[in-house]
């Protein structure tokens, strides 16, 4: 196949997914015989048949949050974002993992598929119902969503992610020390580390976000820098930023607090609240950061973005933060992203200016209040969708009288994350049992729901013991 044919095929594949999303969306309002739907369906038929002219089968598969066609990941631009996200959710609701098209499709095949798709979620076993309704259709086969099992492979992935995370922290420590002593910093290495972070976020976002939830390390500054990087990349990914730009964003975030290397350690690590004079020093770190970054290497786009974000990350979108400037211009996009990630990680950590760490959900509530004044409201919308209503690391009391820890958020049902139980309903400490709060009993009632969130710091609950 020529390059052009390959490109056309990829473009068509992207359009097919988009078109399916349109048909599903419209069919939720109108009947399949509606003129608009009929026209969209015939469009899909012609698109898929065109692809089937080149390939013997078209296998559309959902893996994680991404669609693949015939093993190729389908990348999409921002204009497709809403429809792709929508279809991911709709597939998940039906436990639908794949759709295989073969031979040449008829309009009736897609009409049946659409009807089955629309009616399936109203049953207890949506996938089984879906499959039954599709049994008469020879040209389309569906497959169940593959469960992510905690097998040896995923254990290896966890290990790999943990290794990447700590390597990043260790490298950050090295960078900061070099900045402090005026030594040359190896940017190539930092970039490679950030690329590996981006890959992990694209493949295993939840695992890496989980690493940011642990706040009990001694070397706060370095962990904080890496956490802000991870959160920024994850948010950037939600925004549809390209891989290459995500690496830049990660680097920018990694360097955002470089200026703190100049803050005297006795101030930075002070166990009590800052005096006014100490605050004056702290408030200089954005400027010191800019200065340190610009001294690191020759001017290029990445250096400039890093320097700008370092200067602006405490300014707030309404310029109520610091440093105070004469000319109040709009903050850079990366600065606003880093600012969100920074505030969230700082508020949920124990060694920041306020000294009192907040549970993740409380931190989000405060950020919600700041949205539109200090924080960018549009980006915050994406941010809260990313971390979920109960972010990883939230300690929750369940109505089943079990105490647990959120280990994975749920994008479709934000109040129903996966939870690691740490105390059972008899009040015994337990380990290793992860439950999914979307689980229902025979009467179609949820088995467990969150009743209350607990501040882990108040009760000295060490998240590291469970998440590492």
């Amino acid at each position: 196949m020529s390059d052009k044919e390959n490109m056309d095929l990829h473009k068509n594949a992207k359009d097919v997914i988009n078109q399916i999303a349109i048909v599903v969306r419209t069919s939720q309002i109108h009947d399949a015989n509606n003129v608009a739907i009929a026209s969209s369906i015939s469009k899909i038929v012609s698109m898929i048949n065109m692809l089937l002219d080149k390939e013997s089968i078209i296998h559309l598969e959902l893996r994680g949050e991404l669609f693949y066609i015939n093993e190729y990941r389908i990348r999409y631009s921002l204009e497709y974002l809403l429809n792709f996200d929508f279809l991911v959710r709709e597939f998940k609701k039906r436990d639908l993992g794949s759709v295989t098209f073969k031979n040449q499709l008829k309009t009736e095949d897609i009409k049946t598929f659409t009807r089955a798709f629309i009616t399936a979620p109203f049953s207890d076993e949506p996938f089984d119902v879906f499959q039954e309704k599709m049994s008469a259709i020879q040209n389309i086969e569906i497959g169940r969503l593959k469960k992510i099992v905690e097998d040896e492979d995923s254990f290896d992935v966890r290990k790999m992610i943990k290794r990447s995370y700590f390597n990043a922290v260790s490298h950050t420590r090295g960078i900061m020390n070099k900045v402090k002593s005026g030594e040359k910093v190896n940017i190539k290495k930092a970039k490679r580390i950030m690329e590996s972070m981006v890959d992990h976020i694209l493949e295993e976002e939840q695992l890496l976000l989980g690493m940011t939830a642990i706040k009990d390390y001694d070397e706060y500054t370095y962990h904080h820098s890496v956490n802000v990087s991870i959160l920024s990349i994850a948010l950037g990914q939600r925004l549809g930023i390209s891989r290459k730009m995500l690496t830049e964003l990660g680097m920018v975030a990694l360097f955002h607090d470089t200026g703190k290397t100049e803050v005297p350690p006795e101030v930075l690590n002070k166990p009590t609240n800052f005096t006014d004079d100490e605050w004056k020093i702290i408030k200089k770190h954005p400027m010191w950061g800019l200065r340190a970054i610009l001294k690191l290497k020759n001017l290029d786009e990445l250096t400039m973005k890093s320097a700008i974000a370092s200067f602006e990350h405490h300014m707030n979108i309404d310029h109520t933060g610091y440093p105070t400037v004469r000319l109040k211009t709009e903050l850079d996009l990366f600065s606003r992203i880093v600012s969100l990630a920074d505030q969230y990680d700082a508020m949920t950590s124990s060694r920041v200016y306020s000294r009192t760490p907040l549970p993740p959900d409380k931190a989000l509530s405060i950020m919600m209040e700041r949205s539109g004044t200090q924080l960018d409201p549009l980006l915050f919308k994406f941010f809260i969708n990313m971390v979920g209503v109960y972010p990883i690391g939230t300690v929750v009391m369940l109505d089943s009288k079990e105490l647990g820890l959120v280990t994975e958020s749920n994008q479709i049902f934000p109040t129903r994350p996966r939870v690691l139980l740490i105390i059972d309903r008899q009040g015994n400490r337990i380990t290793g049992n992860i439950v999914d709060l979307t689980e229902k009993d025979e009467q179609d009632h949820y088995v467990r729901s969150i009743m209350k969130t607990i501040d882990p710091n108040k009760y000295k609950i060490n998240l590291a013991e469970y998440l590492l």
Partner: protein
Amino acid sequence: MEMNEEIKTTKDVIQAILKSKKILRMYPDNNPVYIKNLEEAYNKFREFFYYSDELKLKIKQNEIYYGSEQVYVSSEKEDNLALFFFKDGIREITFKKGLANDELEAFLMIITLDFDVKVTDDDIVTLFWEKDFQNIQYVVDDAVLMDDEDYETVAINEAKTQTNEPDFLMKAYEEAFHERDVPEETSIIPLSDKDLQALIEEFEKDAQAKIGKLVSILFEMLYLAETRQDFEDLSGFLMSAIDYAVLHGDIQIATDILSRLKVLLENKNISDEIKKFIKKIMLFAGSETVINHLGEILDSGQDIDEKTLDDFVIYLDKNAILPFMKILGELKNIHPRKIVINALTHLGSKDILVLSSGLNDTRWYVVRNIIHILRKIGDKRAVDFLLKTVKHGDNRVKIEVIRALGELGGAGVIIALREALDDPEVQVRIAALKALGAVSSEAAKRIILDKIMNKTFKDKEFDEKKFYFEAIAKWRDKEVFDFLVSILKKKTFFGSTKNDENRACAAYSLGLIGNKDALNILNKYKNEGSKLIQEFIYTAIRRLEHE
């Protein structure tokens, strides 16, 4: 496929990669050699894929293996393909059957880069990663990135040291038995089309260059600066910003920086100490580094607004003269040279001596351009330098310098111009005539009159004679008028053709002078003599009657 065939094809692929690594670097992508090489490399891969779906190469420090067979070995430190991949941590590369031509080209272009010469923050792995190949996969050993192998263990142990105290945990459990304090269901915050549109606009804004934003911040920092070190650092950053802006063709940003600095320089409330830093930055804008970069941009064909460039030059000091003269000799295109000439015309007046040093350049076109600039500046101090160039070996330079001398004038000029009238090259002589006309002094007039009156004058070519009379017409005084009339009246028996030429030129000159008193004599002779005289007299009459 037989194993030995498979190995042979693999080795062919490796050889094709090695060949491309050398060749693609040397040619632009539209060159037939480049295209042919790429095609050949692609064909080698296709030959392999005819038999097998993927080509997996294992990378060792000095060897490459296909399966257990060694397909490449080198003990060199330079030009060692295995080591080239190995040093950045690549341990395996797999090419898959779907490999497209453009993917292969992108791959080859990366490995072709000369990492020793090109200053880049990217290694091969980063460049591969950015390409996100669909059909080229690679395995990387990230151990090369490890700073401290024990860090993970130590950090985890530290974090886990604070184990959960059972009493506290149970307390948390017990105290949590209260009524629900969270809503049972909360919907996800929906994203609307409007949000998406706003996001697209954000990206569009973000795509703009960051230098403007950085400069704005640097000025904020300048206002916040307290110590000498702060000012010193900021001077360095602003210099880098100017250089970056110029190098990227963003001359407006560089001009904005200089204009803002100029305002600060004129501010009486700013200390002399700070003003020293500001002056240093402004001088840097005219340094060889910046002006060289400006030259690169101008010659690259990038569209640069001339007005913006003129504005930039206004803020430069005389230190920019030498760098500008240097690039003047190096620029390949005419348009950028014109721009630089304009810049030097502005800057040159700040130091004629430095500008004049360009007259010693070995390249004739540089000397001619400098003369042109000196002429445009019009500073009479340049005459002494120009006079040294009158005997330049290149006639194009001579003509330009004569022209300049004519416009600048002065006593010293006359002798040089008189000598130039005897130059073997007619164009030089004509230039000298025009120059003498431009000088329009009595001495200059005398030289021309003497030449015309000389007995050898009649032997000159008609065109040259015409220039003499055109030149003398600049003096509209009685002496010249009478002189011309006398020539017009003069008839000879012998050599009448040459004399007629003189008479025709005199008529032409009378027409140019514009004195209507000449009409009588012109009308008198209008039907006499040769056709040439009649034609020139007729033209002169028409000119005088219609003036």
